């Protein structure tokens, strides 16, 4: 045995109490360090899962991209998963018993979107074609309009405007009313036929004051026209601070006007957009 090891062993043997106390100390220290590290890591993991459960798993959202820009995003080396979505618009929900919620809000996702966003199917299946929809179960429970799986609906889908307004209202803006009278109308309507293939729980992103019950259809990437625009949410292969610069660079190179980041999730990976916050945390 090496003389240093021999010396160490003899010292340990001769000082049994000190050795015991040292071993206990080391065990406690290691256990504490492990516990603290485990708490930190599992807390981050918990928060990441919670954020994904609340807002879906995506990192960067490129808004209103055309077919060519979508192709560039899809082929980007950093892209792991691509979620395509589109807000198609609103349609009148005939027979709605809720005066503040007279519409259906039609949103479209590709297959990845149904997987990455917190959409809970309660009956049936998710749409697999552009003429299929799943509808919020609140339509039956709250609006008291009952549809069955397999029913076909014909909807006039358009945008919400006030009588003299130019910009359409989104789902997050409540129904425009004055003295108990609705002061908004649907414009630019086009007729769309859907077959109901399932029902879903009310999505978490649909606020209580939203004027439309959510129904979700399928966006077929191959059917996106040259003039059409969609939203592209991306899950990155590697999540680190270079993600923000990379996304901005991609947007700039492909003339994408708007991109936003899922900071609710990214912050738990240590990706922080605000320099001030980063300075506060790390300086």
């Amino acid at each position, binding site marked *: 045995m*090496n003389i240093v090891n*021999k*010396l160490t062993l*003899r010292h340990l043997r001769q000082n049994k109490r000190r050795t015991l106390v040292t071993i206990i100390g080391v065990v406690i220290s290691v256990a504490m360090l492990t516990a603290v590290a485990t708490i930190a890591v599992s807390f981050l993991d918990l928060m990441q899962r919670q954020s994904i459960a609340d807002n879906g798993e995506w990192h960067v959202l490129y808004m209103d991209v055309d077919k060519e820009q979508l192709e560039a995003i899809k082929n980007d080396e950093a892209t792991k998963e691509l979620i395509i979505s589109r807000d198609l618009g609103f349609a009148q929900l005939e027979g709605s018993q809720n005066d503040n919620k007279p519409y259906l809000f039609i949103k479209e996702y590709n297959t990845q979107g149904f997987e990455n966003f917190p959409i809970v199917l309660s009956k049936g299946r998710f749409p697999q074609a552009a003429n299929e929809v799943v509808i919020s179960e609140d339509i039956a429970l709250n609006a008291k309009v009952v549809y069955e799986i397999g029913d076909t609906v014909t909807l006039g889908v358009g945008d919400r405007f006030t009588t003299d307004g130019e910009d359409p209202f989104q789902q997050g803006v409540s129904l425009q009313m004055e003295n108990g009278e609705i002061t908004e109308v649907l414009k630019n309507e086009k007729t769309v036929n859907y077959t109901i293939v399932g029902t879903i729980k009310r999505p978490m992103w649909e606020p209580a004051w939203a004027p439309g019950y959510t129904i979700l259809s399928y966006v077929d990437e191959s059917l996106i026209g040259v003039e059409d625009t969609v939203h592209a949410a991306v899950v990155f292969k590697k999540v680190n601070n270079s993600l923000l610069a990379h996304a901005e660079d991609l947007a700039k190179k492909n003339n994408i006007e708007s991109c936003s980041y899922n900071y609710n999730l990214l912050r738990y990976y240590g990706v922080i957009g605000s320099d001030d916050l980063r300075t506060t945390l790390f300086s």
Partner: protein
Amino acid sequence: MDILKIDHLSKLYGKGETAVKALDDVSLTIKKGEFVAIIGPSGSGKSTLLHMLGGVDKPTSGKVFVDNTDIYNLNETQLAIFRRRQIGLIYQFYNLIPVLTVEENITLPVLLDEHKVDKKQLGEIVKTLNLQSRLNHLPNQLSGGQQQRVSIGRALISNPALMLADEPTGNLDSENSKEIIDLLKMFNKNYNQTLIIITHDERIALQADRIITIKDGRIAKDEVIRP
């Protein structure tokens, strides 16, 4: 042949107004096989000089050549190995390792080098030091004189170029002191071992070939008694 050369060696402890100059521009050479005694009053810089020669402490300026090697030009690891192989140190309080036996204490420099112990050489040293019956004893089972003999054995086991002894008899009675000095002298004469010894005892100093007197960090006197 010069085994040791000290070139303008200075050592300063502390900084500014509180700085203490322990060694002040000391230069000297020592030949192989010489027996040199370094004497001087307390605080004159004797032990500091010995530590510098042994590579134990670093000088503020100046150089130390042991067997033509500039020891302070070596990195920490190289210096540790050099010290282990080329310098034999004997201290007043022996500095033996209490949990190692006499044999292990003597062979420690060789074992640290992870070399095989030369049993013949060990046997000769042990016989000369009269420690044959004590090889498996621990230091606390030995008398002061025996402990100092063990430390001499440890200093000799790697055939060092230099043997440095810092008041080796300072903790011993007169009988044991004489025995230790006789042993050191014997190794000096029989094995041509260079020996530098620090002492307060004039009788011991007078047995050396050369006496160097240190005062206020400088060499006050350097006299050769036996050429």
